[in-house]
Protein backbone atom coordinates (compact mmCIF):
# COMPACT_ATOMS: atom_id res chain seq x y z
CA UNK A 1 0.00 0.00 0.00
CA UNK A 2 2.72 2.39 0.97
CA UNK A 3 4.83 1.46 -2.03
CA UNK A 4 1.87 2.01 -4.28
CA UNK A 5 1.43 5.49 -2.88
CA UNK A 6 5.10 6.20 -3.28
CA UNK A 7 4.98 4.94 -6.85
CA UNK A 8 2.01 7.18 -7.55
CA UNK A 9 3.90 10.14 -6.11
CA UNK A 10 6.92 9.43 -8.30
CA UNK A 11 4.74 9.09 -11.35
CA UNK A 12 3.05 12.39 -10.57
CA UNK A 13 6.36 14.18 -10.18
CA UNK A 14 7.54 12.80 -13.50
CA UNK A 15 4.28 13.76 -15.16
CA UNK A 16 4.35 17.24 -13.77
CA UNK A 17 7.73 18.00 -15.24
CA UNK A 18 7.10 16.62 -18.68
CA UNK A 19 4.08 18.29 -20.20
CA UNK A 20 3.45 18.08 -23.92
CA UNK A 21 0.79 20.41 -25.12
CA UNK A 22 -1.29 20.02 -28.21
CA UNK A 23 -0.89 22.43 -31.10
CA UNK A 24 -4.60 22.91 -31.51
CA UNK A 25 -5.08 26.61 -31.32
CA UNK A 26 -8.73 27.48 -31.29
CA UNK A 27 -8.85 31.19 -30.54
CA UNK A 28 -6.95 34.43 -30.56
CA UNK A 29 -4.95 33.59 -27.44
CA UNK A 30 -2.66 31.36 -29.46
CA UNK A 31 -0.68 34.43 -30.43
CA UNK A 32 0.65 34.63 -26.90
CA UNK A 33 2.19 31.19 -27.14
CA UNK A 34 5.06 31.88 -29.56
CA UNK A 35 6.74 34.37 -27.18
CA UNK A 36 6.13 31.97 -24.34
CA UNK A 37 7.83 29.15 -26.19
CA UNK A 38 10.76 31.02 -27.72
CA UNK A 39 13.88 32.59 -26.33
CA UNK A 40 12.43 35.29 -24.13
CA UNK A 41 10.28 33.20 -21.83
CA UNK A 42 11.41 29.69 -22.82
CA UNK A 43 8.71 27.30 -21.79
CA UNK A 44 10.94 24.28 -22.48
CA UNK A 45 12.89 24.84 -19.27
CA UNK A 46 9.76 23.74 -17.41
CA UNK A 47 9.61 20.64 -19.54
CA UNK A 48 6.74 21.91 -21.63
CA UNK A 49 6.96 21.29 -25.34
CA UNK A 50 4.53 21.57 -28.22
CA UNK A 51 3.27 18.37 -29.85
CA UNK A 52 1.47 17.89 -33.10
CA UNK A 53 -1.02 15.15 -32.32
CA UNK A 54 -3.42 14.53 -29.45
CA UNK A 55 -2.05 11.02 -29.04
CA UNK A 56 1.23 12.37 -27.76
CA UNK A 57 -0.08 15.36 -25.85
CA UNK A 58 -0.86 15.81 -22.17
CA UNK A 59 -2.32 19.30 -22.12
CA UNK A 60 -5.14 20.60 -24.27
CA UNK A 61 -4.98 24.36 -24.45
CA UNK A 62 -8.21 26.14 -25.27
CA UNK A 63 -6.82 29.47 -26.31
CA UNK A 64 -9.73 31.85 -26.09
CA UNK A 65 -13.24 31.84 -27.53
CA UNK A 66 -14.56 28.49 -28.66
CA UNK A 67 -17.27 28.32 -31.27
CA UNK A 68 -19.78 25.52 -31.07
CA UNK A 69 -18.44 24.10 -34.29
CA UNK A 70 -14.93 23.96 -32.88
CA UNK A 71 -16.18 22.53 -29.61
CA UNK A 72 -17.27 19.41 -31.45
CA UNK A 73 -13.74 18.93 -32.75
CA UNK A 74 -12.22 19.78 -29.42
CA UNK A 75 -14.28 17.13 -27.66
CA UNK A 76 -13.26 14.59 -30.25
CA UNK A 77 -9.64 15.60 -29.87
CA UNK A 78 -9.83 15.49 -26.10
CA UNK A 79 -11.17 11.97 -26.20
CA UNK A 80 -8.27 10.94 -28.41
CA UNK A 81 -5.77 12.09 -25.82
CA UNK A 82 -4.46 9.51 -23.42
CA UNK A 83 -4.99 9.91 -19.72
CA UNK A 84 -3.67 11.44 -17.53
CA UNK A 85 -4.53 14.56 -19.48
CA UNK A 86 -5.30 18.12 -18.54
CA UNK A 87 -7.32 20.97 -20.00
CA UNK A 88 -6.20 24.55 -19.62
CA UNK A 89 -8.72 27.29 -20.28
CA UNK A 90 -7.06 30.38 -21.65
CA UNK A 91 -8.47 33.88 -21.39
CA UNK A 92 -11.79 35.12 -20.13
CA UNK A 93 -13.76 33.68 -23.06
CA UNK A 94 -13.39 30.20 -21.68
CA UNK A 95 -14.55 31.30 -18.24
CA UNK A 96 -17.78 33.10 -19.04
CA UNK A 97 -17.86 33.82 -22.73
CA UNK A 98 -15.93 37.07 -22.48
CA UNK A 99 -16.87 39.65 -25.05
CA UNK A 100 -18.69 36.94 -26.96
CA UNK A 101 -21.13 36.32 -24.15
CA UNK A 102 -24.13 36.95 -26.42
CA UNK A 103 -22.91 35.27 -29.58
CA UNK A 104 -25.11 32.64 -31.17
CA UNK A 105 -22.13 30.50 -32.10
CA UNK A 106 -19.62 30.57 -29.23
CA UNK A 107 -19.99 28.74 -25.96
CA UNK A 108 -19.94 30.57 -22.68
CA UNK A 109 -18.39 28.26 -20.17
CA UNK A 110 -15.91 25.57 -21.05
CA UNK A 111 -16.18 23.71 -17.79
CA UNK A 112 -19.57 22.35 -18.73
CA UNK A 113 -18.18 20.40 -21.63
CA UNK A 114 -14.63 19.51 -20.67
CA UNK A 115 -13.07 19.21 -17.21
CA UNK A 116 -10.87 22.29 -16.98
CA UNK A 117 -7.97 21.94 -14.60
CA UNK A 118 -6.66 25.45 -14.79
CA UNK A 119 -7.99 28.80 -15.97
CA UNK A 120 -5.74 31.61 -17.06
CA UNK A 121 -7.72 34.82 -16.75
CA UNK A 122 -7.14 37.87 -18.89
CA UNK A 123 -7.79 39.04 -22.37
CA UNK A 124 -5.25 37.90 -23.28
CA UNK A 125 -2.98 36.64 -20.49
CA UNK A 126 0.58 37.79 -20.92
CA UNK A 127 3.36 35.21 -21.23
CA UNK A 128 4.33 35.86 -17.61
CA UNK A 129 0.81 34.93 -16.59
CA UNK A 130 0.97 31.81 -18.73
CA UNK A 131 4.25 30.70 -17.17
CA UNK A 132 2.83 31.41 -13.76
CA UNK A 133 -0.26 29.41 -14.60
CA UNK A 134 1.75 26.48 -15.80
CA UNK A 135 3.82 26.48 -12.64
CA UNK A 136 0.57 26.31 -10.71
CA UNK A 137 -0.54 23.42 -12.91
CA UNK A 138 2.71 21.56 -12.30
CA UNK A 139 2.20 22.03 -8.59
CA UNK A 140 -1.33 20.67 -8.82
CA UNK A 141 -0.22 17.66 -10.84
CA UNK A 142 2.56 16.87 -8.39
CA UNK A 143 0.08 16.93 -5.53
CA UNK A 144 -2.36 14.82 -7.49
CA UNK A 145 -5.03 17.50 -7.46
CA UNK A 146 -5.35 17.92 -11.17
CA UNK A 147 -7.77 15.08 -11.70
CA UNK A 148 -10.09 16.47 -14.35
CA UNK A 149 -9.63 13.41 -16.56
CA UNK A 150 -10.85 11.17 -13.75
CA UNK A 151 -13.81 13.42 -13.22
CA UNK A 152 -14.64 13.30 -16.92
CA UNK A 153 -14.51 9.53 -16.84
CA UNK A 154 -16.73 9.23 -13.78
CA UNK A 155 -19.30 11.87 -14.78
CA UNK A 156 -19.33 11.08 -18.43
CA UNK A 157 -23.09 11.16 -18.71
CA UNK A 158 -23.35 14.62 -17.26
CA UNK A 159 -20.72 15.96 -19.65
CA UNK A 160 -22.33 14.21 -22.57
CA UNK A 161 -25.67 15.72 -21.67
CA UNK A 162 -24.18 19.22 -21.68
CA UNK A 163 -22.35 18.56 -24.91
CA UNK A 164 -25.49 17.34 -26.58
CA UNK A 165 -27.41 20.35 -25.40
CA UNK A 166 -24.93 22.61 -27.11
CA UNK A 167 -24.22 20.58 -30.19
CA UNK A 168 -27.32 18.61 -30.97
CA UNK A 169 -27.79 14.88 -30.90
CA UNK A 170 -25.40 14.05 -33.71
CA UNK A 171 -22.36 14.24 -31.44
CA UNK A 172 -19.83 11.62 -32.39
CA UNK A 173 -18.32 9.78 -29.47
CA UNK A 174 -15.44 7.39 -29.60
CA UNK A 175 -16.37 4.84 -27.04
Amino acid sequence: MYTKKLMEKIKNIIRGHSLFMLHYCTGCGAIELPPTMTSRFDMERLGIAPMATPRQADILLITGYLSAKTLRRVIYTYEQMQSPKWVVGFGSCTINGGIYYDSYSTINELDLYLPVDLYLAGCMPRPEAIINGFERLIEKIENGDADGWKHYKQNREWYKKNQKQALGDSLYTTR
Partner: protein
Amino acid sequence: MEQKKVIEKISNEYGIKKIKFKKIENQQFKVKINKKEIINFLTYLKNIGFWQLSLITAVDWIDNNQFEIVYNLVSWELEQHIIVKTFIPRENPRITSIINIWPVAKYYEWDVNEYFGVVFDGNPNNGKELFLENWDDKPPMRKDFDPLNYSKEKFPEKEYKNFRMKRKREVIE
Protein backbone atom coordinates in the same frame (compact mmCIF):
# COMPACT_ATOMS: atom_id res chain seq x y z
CA MET B 1 -12.44 55.04 -67.77
CA GLU B 2 -13.97 57.80 -65.78
CA GLN B 3 -16.96 57.07 -63.69
CA LYS B 4 -19.18 59.57 -65.52
CA LYS B 5 -18.47 57.94 -68.83
CA VAL B 6 -19.26 54.52 -67.48
CA ILE B 7 -22.54 55.73 -66.01
CA GLU B 8 -23.35 57.47 -69.27
CA LYS B 9 -22.58 54.36 -71.21
CA ILE B 10 -24.77 52.21 -69.03
CA SER B 11 -27.64 54.70 -69.10
CA ASN B 12 -27.51 55.00 -72.86
CA GLU B 13 -27.02 51.41 -73.77
CA TYR B 14 -29.20 49.72 -71.21
CA GLY B 15 -32.85 50.19 -72.13
CA ILE B 16 -34.38 51.41 -68.89
CA LYS B 17 -34.21 55.13 -68.29
CA LYS B 18 -35.33 55.26 -64.69
CA ILE B 19 -32.25 53.81 -63.03
CA LYS B 20 -30.43 56.19 -60.75
CA PHE B 21 -26.72 55.93 -60.05
CA LYS B 22 -25.17 57.27 -56.92
CA LYS B 23 -21.49 57.98 -56.54
CA ILE B 24 -19.75 56.69 -53.46
CA GLU B 25 -16.13 57.28 -54.35
CA ASN B 26 -14.22 58.06 -57.49
CA GLN B 27 -14.13 54.43 -58.46
CA GLN B 28 -17.21 53.13 -56.74
CA PHE B 29 -20.89 53.74 -57.37
CA LYS B 30 -24.15 52.06 -56.59
CA VAL B 31 -27.42 51.47 -58.31
CA LYS B 32 -30.81 50.24 -57.17
CA ILE B 33 -32.75 48.07 -59.54
CA ASN B 34 -35.97 46.17 -59.77
CA LYS B 35 -35.93 42.51 -58.82
CA LYS B 36 -37.27 41.49 -62.23
CA GLU B 37 -34.52 43.32 -64.06
CA ILE B 38 -31.69 41.82 -62.05
CA ILE B 39 -30.68 38.99 -64.39
CA ASN B 40 -30.72 41.13 -67.50
CA PHE B 41 -28.86 43.93 -65.85
CA LEU B 42 -26.15 41.74 -64.39
CA THR B 43 -25.70 39.97 -67.70
CA TYR B 44 -25.35 43.32 -69.40
CA LEU B 45 -22.82 44.47 -66.83
CA LYS B 46 -20.80 41.33 -67.27
CA ASN B 47 -20.74 41.91 -71.02
CA ILE B 48 -19.42 45.46 -70.77
CA GLY B 49 -16.54 44.41 -68.54
CA PHE B 50 -17.75 43.82 -65.00
CA TRP B 51 -16.81 40.20 -65.15
CA GLN B 52 -15.78 39.74 -61.53
CA LEU B 53 -18.44 39.01 -58.95
CA SER B 54 -16.77 39.80 -55.67
CA LEU B 55 -19.64 39.36 -53.21
CA ILE B 56 -23.33 38.74 -52.76
CA THR B 57 -24.76 39.72 -49.43
CA ALA B 58 -28.02 40.78 -47.86
CA VAL B 59 -29.34 43.40 -45.41
CA ASP B 60 -32.38 42.91 -43.25
CA TRP B 61 -34.54 46.11 -43.24
CA ILE B 62 -36.96 44.91 -40.65
CA ASP B 63 -38.87 48.23 -40.41
CA ASN B 64 -39.59 48.30 -44.13
CA ASN B 65 -40.26 44.60 -44.04
CA GLN B 66 -37.74 44.07 -46.82
CA PHE B 67 -34.50 42.26 -47.59
CA GLU B 68 -31.91 44.05 -49.60
CA ILE B 69 -29.79 41.79 -51.79
CA VAL B 70 -26.48 43.35 -52.73
CA TYR B 71 -24.26 42.33 -55.62
CA ASN B 72 -20.71 43.67 -55.77
CA LEU B 73 -19.11 43.67 -59.20
CA VAL B 74 -15.63 44.80 -60.16
CA SER B 75 -14.26 45.67 -63.54
CA TRP B 76 -10.53 45.77 -63.93
CA GLU B 77 -10.70 47.23 -67.43
CA LEU B 78 -13.05 50.08 -66.55
CA GLU B 79 -11.43 50.44 -63.15
CA GLN B 80 -14.82 50.68 -61.50
CA HIS B 81 -16.61 48.96 -58.67
CA ILE B 82 -20.39 48.78 -58.92
CA ILE B 83 -22.84 47.82 -56.20
CA VAL B 84 -26.16 46.59 -57.51
CA LYS B 85 -29.02 46.43 -55.03
CA THR B 86 -32.45 45.04 -55.15
CA PHE B 87 -35.25 44.72 -52.61
CA ILE B 88 -37.43 41.73 -51.98
CA PRO B 89 -40.27 41.29 -49.49
CA ARG B 90 -39.45 39.80 -46.13
CA GLU B 91 -42.22 37.26 -46.16
CA ASN B 92 -41.34 34.31 -48.33
CA PRO B 93 -38.15 35.91 -49.71
CA ARG B 94 -37.32 34.52 -53.16
CA ILE B 95 -35.07 35.66 -55.94
CA THR B 96 -33.65 34.05 -59.07
CA SER B 97 -30.20 32.60 -58.73
CA ILE B 98 -27.38 33.94 -60.91
CA ILE B 99 -25.21 30.81 -60.93
CA ASN B 100 -25.65 30.63 -64.69
CA ILE B 101 -23.90 33.95 -65.07
CA TRP B 102 -21.28 33.49 -62.36
CA PRO B 103 -20.81 29.88 -61.16
CA VAL B 104 -19.04 31.24 -58.10
CA ALA B 105 -22.36 32.74 -56.99
CA LYS B 106 -23.27 29.27 -55.75
CA TYR B 107 -21.39 29.78 -52.51
CA TYR B 108 -22.35 33.42 -51.92
CA GLU B 109 -25.98 32.54 -52.39
CA TRP B 110 -25.65 29.51 -50.19
CA ASP B 111 -24.21 31.73 -47.48
CA VAL B 112 -27.06 34.27 -47.77
CA ASN B 113 -29.55 31.46 -47.80
CA GLU B 114 -28.17 30.01 -44.61
CA TYR B 115 -27.90 33.23 -42.66
CA PHE B 116 -31.00 35.10 -43.92
CA GLY B 117 -33.26 32.41 -45.22
CA VAL B 118 -33.51 33.95 -48.68
CA VAL B 119 -34.30 31.28 -51.28
CA PHE B 120 -32.43 31.51 -54.55
CA ASP B 121 -34.42 29.78 -57.28
CA GLY B 122 -32.11 27.62 -59.31
CA ASN B 123 -29.38 27.18 -56.70
CA PRO B 124 -29.10 23.49 -55.79
CA ASN B 125 -27.89 24.19 -52.25
CA ASN B 126 -30.93 25.90 -50.79
CA GLY B 127 -31.53 24.65 -47.29
CA LYS B 128 -28.29 22.71 -47.06
CA GLU B 129 -25.70 23.15 -44.34
CA LEU B 130 -22.69 25.34 -45.08
CA PHE B 131 -21.28 27.00 -41.96
CA LEU B 132 -23.77 26.23 -39.23
CA GLU B 133 -23.92 22.70 -37.95
CA ASN B 134 -27.30 21.37 -36.76
CA TRP B 135 -28.88 24.80 -36.75
CA ASP B 136 -32.33 24.63 -35.17
CA ASP B 137 -33.55 28.22 -34.96
CA LYS B 138 -34.49 30.97 -37.39
CA PRO B 139 -31.60 32.23 -39.57
CA PRO B 140 -29.21 34.03 -37.21
CA MET B 141 -28.59 37.23 -39.18
CA ARG B 142 -32.21 38.23 -39.24
CA LYS B 143 -32.97 41.21 -37.05
CA ASP B 144 -35.74 39.48 -35.19
CA PHE B 145 -33.38 36.76 -34.00
CA ASP B 146 -32.19 37.34 -30.42
CA PRO B 147 -28.63 36.02 -30.02
CA LEU B 148 -28.38 36.72 -26.29
CA ASN B 149 -31.46 34.71 -25.58
CA TYR B 150 -30.29 31.93 -27.82
CA SER B 151 -26.88 31.92 -26.18
CA LYS B 152 -28.38 31.75 -22.70
CA GLU B 153 -30.62 28.92 -23.69
CA LYS B 154 -28.10 26.89 -25.60
CA PHE B 155 -24.86 27.66 -23.78
CA PRO B 156 -25.79 28.10 -20.15
CA GLU B 157 -23.45 29.22 -17.40
CA LYS B 158 -22.68 27.32 -14.28
CA GLU B 159 -23.55 28.94 -10.99
CA TYR B 160 -20.82 28.82 -8.42
CA LYS B 161 -21.97 28.44 -4.87
CA ASN B 162 -18.75 29.32 -3.20
CA PHE B 163 -16.53 31.09 -5.61
CA ARG B 164 -13.66 31.91 -3.31
CA MET B 165 -13.11 28.42 -2.06
CA LYS B 166 -10.84 26.04 -3.83
CA ARG B 167 -13.23 24.77 -6.39
CA LYS B 168 -14.19 21.17 -5.77
CA ARG B 169 -15.71 19.47 -8.69
CA GLU B 170 -19.15 18.12 -8.30
CA VAL B 171 -21.92 17.28 -10.66
CA ILE B 172 -24.31 20.16 -10.85
CA GLU B 173 -27.78 19.17 -11.75
